[in-house]
C-alpha cells in the first residue's frame, strides 16, 4: 500500500496540459527520484500533490485517504510536506525563528492563549527550542542561528528549508531540486542528511537535475516528459530507456 499515490492526474493552465494522466507512487519509507527536462511537469506534479494547484481530473491519496480536495495546510498537517525550487525562507526572521515558526499546532499562536496561558506558552517555547537545536545540529546550522535567513547562502537556505520540514515531523517530504545552486561539499552533506532521514522512516520524493548524484542515492526513479511519465524503475533501467534518452539528451548518447 503506497503512502502517497497520485492517480491519473491531469492538470493544466488554460489550454496547456502541464500534467497528462500521471501516475506516481511513493511507498512508506521509500526514497524515490523524479527526473525530466525543464517544463516536463515535475514541479507542477509537486504542486498538485500538495494542493497548490488543483487537478482537473484524477485523485491524490495519502496515508490511505483521499486528499484530492484538501487545502494545502490540511495536507501538510497529515504529514505531506514539500520544499520549493527557489527557497522560500522568512527573510527577516532569524534562522532560529524560521525553525520555531515551523513547529505545528503551537499554543502560543492563539491570541487568547497570550493572555490566559502564558506559563504554558513558556514551557512550549522551551520544548520547541530544544527541538530546534536538535534540527540545527543535524543540519549544521548552529553557527548561523542568529542570522537573518535572507542573508544566508543559497545552500544554507536549502538546508534551512529542509530544517523547517523536519520541525513538522512529516511522513513524506517532497524536495524540489534540493541540490540546485549548492556547492559540491554541501551537496554531499545534503545527500547524507536526506539518506539519514529516509533511514529514520520518512518517505522522500526528490526532483533533481543532478542525475549522477540522484542515481547514487535513490533505488527507484520516475522520468517525465511533456506532462507524462515516460519511464520508471531502477535508475539504471530508467537512464538506459530510449524514451528517456530521447527526451533528455535528444538521443545524442
Amino acid at each position: 500500500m503506497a503512502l502517497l499515490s497520485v492517480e491519473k492526474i491531469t492538470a493544466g493552465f488554460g489550454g496547456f496540459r502541464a500534467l497528462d494522466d500521471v501516475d506516481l507512487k511513493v511507498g512508506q519509507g521509500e526514497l524515490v527520484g523524479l527526473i525530466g527536462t525543464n517544463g516536463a511537469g515535475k514541479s507542477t506534479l509537486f504542486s498538485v500533490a500538495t494542493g497548490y494547484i488543483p487537478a482537473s481530473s484524477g485523485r491524490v491519496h495519502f496515508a490511505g485517504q483521499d486528499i484530492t480536495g484538501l487545502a494545502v495546510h490540511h495536507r501538510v498537517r497529515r504529514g505531506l510536506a514539500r520544499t520549493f525550487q527557489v527557497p522560500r525562507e522568512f527573510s527577516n526572521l532569524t534562522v532560529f525563528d524560521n525553525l520555531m515558526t515551523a513547529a505545528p499546532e503551537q499554543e502560543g499562536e492563539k491570541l487568547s492563549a497570550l493572555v490566559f496561558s502564558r506559563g504554558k506558552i513558556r514551557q512550549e517555547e522551551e520544548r520547541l527550542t530544544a527541538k530546534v537545536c536538535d534540527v540545527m545540529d543535524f543540519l549544521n546550522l548552529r553557527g548561523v542561528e542568529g542570522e537573518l535567513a535572507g542573508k544566508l547562502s543559497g545552500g544554507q537556505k536549502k538546508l534551512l528549508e529542509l530544517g523547517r520540514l523536519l520541525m513538522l515531523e512529516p511522513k513524506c517530504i517532497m524536495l524540489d531540486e534540493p541540490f540546485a545552486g549548492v556547492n559540491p561539499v554541501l551537496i554531499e552533506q545534503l545527500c547524507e542528511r536526506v539518506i539519514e532521514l529516509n533511514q529514520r522512516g520518512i518517505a522522500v520524493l526528490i526532483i533533481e537535475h543532478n542525475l549522477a548524484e540522484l542515481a547514487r542515492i535513490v533505488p527507484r526513479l520516475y522520468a517525465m516528459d511533456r506532462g507524462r511519465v515516460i519511464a520508471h524503475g531502477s535508475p539504471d533501467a530508467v537512464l538506459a530507456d530510449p524514451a528517456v534518452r530521447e527526451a533528455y539528451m535528444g538521443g545524442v548518447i
Partner: protein
Amino acid sequence: MEGYLIAIFISILIYLLLAGGLALQYGFTGLVNFGHVGFFAIGSYTSALLALKGVPIPISLAAATALAALSAYPLGMIALRLGGDYLAIVTLGFSEAVRMMLQTEEWLTRGMHGLPGIPRLFAGWVEPQKTDLLILILLVVVCVGVFFLIHHIIKSPFGRVIEAIRDNEVAVRALGKNPAQFKTRSLMLGAGIAGLAGGLQAHYLTFISPEQYVPLITFYIWIALVLGGVGSLRGVVMGTVLLVGFLEGSRFIRDVIGGVSEVQMASLRIWVIGVALICVILYRPQGLFGSSPKRSR
C-alpha cells in the same frame, strides 16, 4: 500656550494609536490597509452615539473597539483570500463606504450636520479647562498599554507567524498553517485599536462629522510609518511624533515668524512633508528609525 501644547500632544497620541494598529497590520503582517480611517470612524460614531444615549463612556469605548474589530472580520474573509493589492483597494473602498454611510444615514448620524454635544471625558470631575490635561494623561496611559500589548503580541509565537506571512505567505501554507486565519486576526486587532482611538477622539472633541474621516487621515498614518520605519515600534512612534508634531506645530510657527498666510502655510506644510518623504525613500528606505527587523530572542 499651555493649552495649545496639550492639544498638540493629544493629537499626536490619537494618531499614535492609529499608527500602532496599522503597524501591526502592515509592518508586521504585510497587510496593505488603505482604509484605516474607516475603523477610526466606526469607533468614533459608535462611542459617540452610545454615550449620547446615556451609556457610560468606558462601556461606549469598549463597544467602539469591539465594533471596529468586528467590522474588519467580513472584510478579512472577503479580501484576505486575495493578494495584497486587492486588499488595498477593498479597504480604501470600505473606508469611503463608511464615510458615505455616515453622510447619508441621517436618522442615525445626522449626516453632514455632524454629532454635537458628545459627552466629554472627565466632564464634571474638574473645572472644564483642566479636563484636557486629564484626557492627555489618559491617552498616555492608553498608548503605553496598547504599545505594550502590540510588543507582547509581536514577540509571541503568533507574532512569529504573522511576520513569516509578511515575508512569504506561500511558505507559511507549506508549514501547515492557514495564513487567512492569522491575517484576519491581525486586521481585526489593528481595526480594534483604531476604533478605540476614534472613540477617545470623539469624547475629546465633543463634535464629530463625516468630513473628519477622509482617506487623507489614512495616508497621514502611512506617511508617518514610512518616515519612521515600519518594521519597528520605535520607528512607528518616532515617525508619528515627527509628522503630527510638524502638522500641528507648524501653525504655531506661523504665529512666531509671521508674514506667511494660512493658505501659504498649508501648502508649505504639504511641500515639506513631500520632500521629507522623497528623501527618506531615497536615502533611508527602512525609515529614519527603522532598525533591521531582526527579532530578538
